């Protein structure tokens, strides 16, 4: 659904509006950069699995709009090949996001049907009960965190390559803004990885925190098949991005007037955005190298080293038999990041209530977060709309004569407006 907005934006700005002015891209880039980081920070603070994914979409839309903003800036300055690169990166990210986000939502749905829970704090250890779902969701998590050799990395890499072309832009505003946007994009990518370590680690790893999580069963094979197809596509786009970039070329030439060089002929199926001496990335080779060296290591270890294995209680620095509630929870996992970024972004405050020695009451930690965007923009808007609606409510109870007068007056006013306008 969120992609409809992207489609509408591309249609209007790149197609209908013709040649846009360069300063439009400043607005787009600044908003997109801020959205990217804010989206992922909001996602990090959530412990409802589906809500976390939804906030994460905000981040990804931000990444897409960074690509579109760059394309706009390049196009306005006549750098058509750079514009095509940024535009293709944005479109590829749209496609990638539709793959991994659907996969993750399927995964969250599978968890919900298996346990009846969306709150991560009540889950844990699902990898033992739902190993197949856990494996497929892991691929989705790695893909959305922009990790090679999966697909999320390819589109972010292309966006970075587009950013590296921007010093040739003549306008100073863009020259100062784009490096900052690049830093925000890198920050968002790193925070996204943190966010999905949290989401996956708390939901699927560790020990079950509630009986519901302990009693979970593997989801049905149709859901698994759906996730399997999406996960396979994530890997396919990651290792053979050239095919998909070439498929986007007609769109780019229709809207920008140029397209990226054909990728399919490059050696070993690598992608080369500009020139081979400048930058290239080969997902297939990276994937093969990791697979081969991982297998070499496994082979060497199992040939030469001991293969004995003993199960024992967790070591945990010698603290025996801790209860599952002592595990790191979603809230505690996000605590360092909340402390680093949250004091500014969310005006986060933590209150610890420690009972005096000898008192057996449990200690309490209260975390207070403010959604500043909601409080500063949406909440006043809602109040304003409600206020006006209340005032206008009186019109609902008028008599028929008063209604007719009202219609008549409106007509007069509108005619007057029309007369003055012309």
């Amino acid at each position, binding site marked *: 659904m969120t992609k409809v907005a992207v489609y509408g934006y591309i249609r209007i700005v790149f197609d209908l509006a013709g040649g846009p002015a360069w300063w439009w891209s400043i607005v787009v880039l600044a908003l997109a950069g801020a959205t990217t980081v804010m989206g992922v920070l909001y996602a990090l603070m959530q412990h409802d699995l589906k809500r976390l994914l939804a906030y994460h979409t905000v981040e990804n839309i931000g990444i897409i709009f960074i690509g579109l903003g760059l394309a706009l800036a390049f196009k306005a300055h006549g750098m058509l090949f750079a514009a095509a690169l940024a535009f293709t990166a944005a479109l590829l990210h749209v496609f990638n996001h539709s793959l991994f986000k659907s996969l993750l939502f399927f995964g969250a749905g599978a968890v919900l049907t298996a346990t009846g829970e969306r709150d991560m704090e009540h889950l844990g*250890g699902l990898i*033992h009960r739902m*190993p197949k779902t*856990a494996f497929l969701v892991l691929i989705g998590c790695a893909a959305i965190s*922009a*990790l*090679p050799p999966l697909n999320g*990395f390819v589109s972010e*890499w292309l966006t*970075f*390559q587009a950013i*590296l072309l921007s*010093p040739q832009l003549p306008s100073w505003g863009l020259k*100062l803004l784009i*490096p900052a946007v*690049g830093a925000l994009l*890198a*920050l968002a990518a*790193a*925070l996204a*990885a*943190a966010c*999905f*370590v*949290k989401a996956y*680690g708390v939901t699927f*790893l*560790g020990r079950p925190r509630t009986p519901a999580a302990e009693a979970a069963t593997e989801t049905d094979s149709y859901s698994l098949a759906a996730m399997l197809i999406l996960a396979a596509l994530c890997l396919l786009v990651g290792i053979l991005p050239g095919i998909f970039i070439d498929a986007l070329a007609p769109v780019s030439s229709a809207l920008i007037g140029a397209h990226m060089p054909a990728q399919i002929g490059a050696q*070993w199926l*690598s992608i080369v955005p500009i020139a081979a*001496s400048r930058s290239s*990335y*080969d997902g297939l*080779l*990276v994937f093969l*190298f990791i*697979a081969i*060296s*991982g297998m070499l*290591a*496994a082979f060497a*270890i199992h040939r030469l*080293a*001991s*293969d004995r*294995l*003993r*199960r*024992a*209680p*967790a070591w*945990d*620095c010698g603290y025996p038999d*801790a209860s599952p509630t*002592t*595990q*790191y929870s979603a809230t505690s*996992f996000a605590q*360092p*990041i909340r402390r680093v970024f949250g004091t500014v972004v969310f005006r986060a405050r933590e209150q610890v209530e420690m009972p005096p020695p000898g008192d057996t009451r449990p200690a309490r930690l209260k975390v207070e977060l403010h959604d500043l965007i909601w409080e500063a923009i949406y909440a006043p808007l809602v109040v304003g709309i409600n206020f006006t609606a209340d005032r206008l409510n009186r019109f609902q109870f008028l008599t028929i004569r008063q209604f007719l007068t009202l219609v008549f007056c409106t007509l007069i006013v509108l005619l007057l407006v029309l007369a003055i306008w012309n």
Partner: protein
Amino acid sequence: MELISNFAIQGAQMMLVLLLAPLFTGYVRKVKARLVRRQGPPLLQPYRDLVRLARKEVVLADSASWLFRTIPYLVFAAIWVAASLVPTFRTGLMFSWSADLIAIIALLGSARFLLALAGMDVGTSFGGIGSSREVMIASLAEPAMIMIVFTLALIAGSTQLSTMAAFMASSAVGLRVSLGLGLIALTMVAIAENGRIPIDNPATHLELTMVHEAMVLEYSGRHLALIELSSSLKLLLYVSLIACLFAPWGIDSAGAAIPTLAIGVAAYIGKLAVGGFLLALFETSIAKMRVFRVPEFLGAALMLGLLATLLRFVSGSF
């Protein structure tokens, strides 16, 4: 013939980093010990540790999953691939174009992602604390690193490490403000990424401020051997990266003539010796920071990187 020699050189590079990594770790430990007038463990001790760990049985926690047992191999593979793509004694290796510097950084990110998951897997409080702090540090170190990459890429006109190293070795570089800022920021990031003092202490096991060691606390036997080897490799990778970008002297650019290759290897080992000594000197002369001082340290690295990139954006002459 050329294909075979190229292949052999790429293979030699992979084996060289793998074999040198524990030695380098041992060397840094030895220098650190000597600096505080201790005898220190022998240089070959890390190899002995690895062999001993590999011979021992694995004690696996009851609540550990299949992921916990797979992750050491994946982490090792990702870091080994990344380390083999950084030019050490020769640029323009056979597969050097398969991943540029951004991809190498992202490969290290993959390894860290998996290791942080491993910390969460057993379900203990120590593992969680390590993972959570590791990702916090990474969330600041990675953007700083990307900014450094931007600076260097804009100077060299490429994100391809081989091209960058060749450009840095040429006389076209000169002395630049942005390069200086980049070097400082890169050193700070390298220290943070490898968990060295003042960010983390690689020598402790029972300290509440620990990060990396807490994350891998539940590993034992062959799994721990792989993790230890990967962290040695990662340290070597960062030192090689700094060496090939900021001290590219003696690096062999093309051809497979034995004398130039020998010079390349000798220069590389010399650079490692100097780099390791400087690291040890820095570590002994500074105290460890509290965990929440780390964001300030890395924030400074990020700002330096951003400043260097901005300077490059503003004018080509900085």
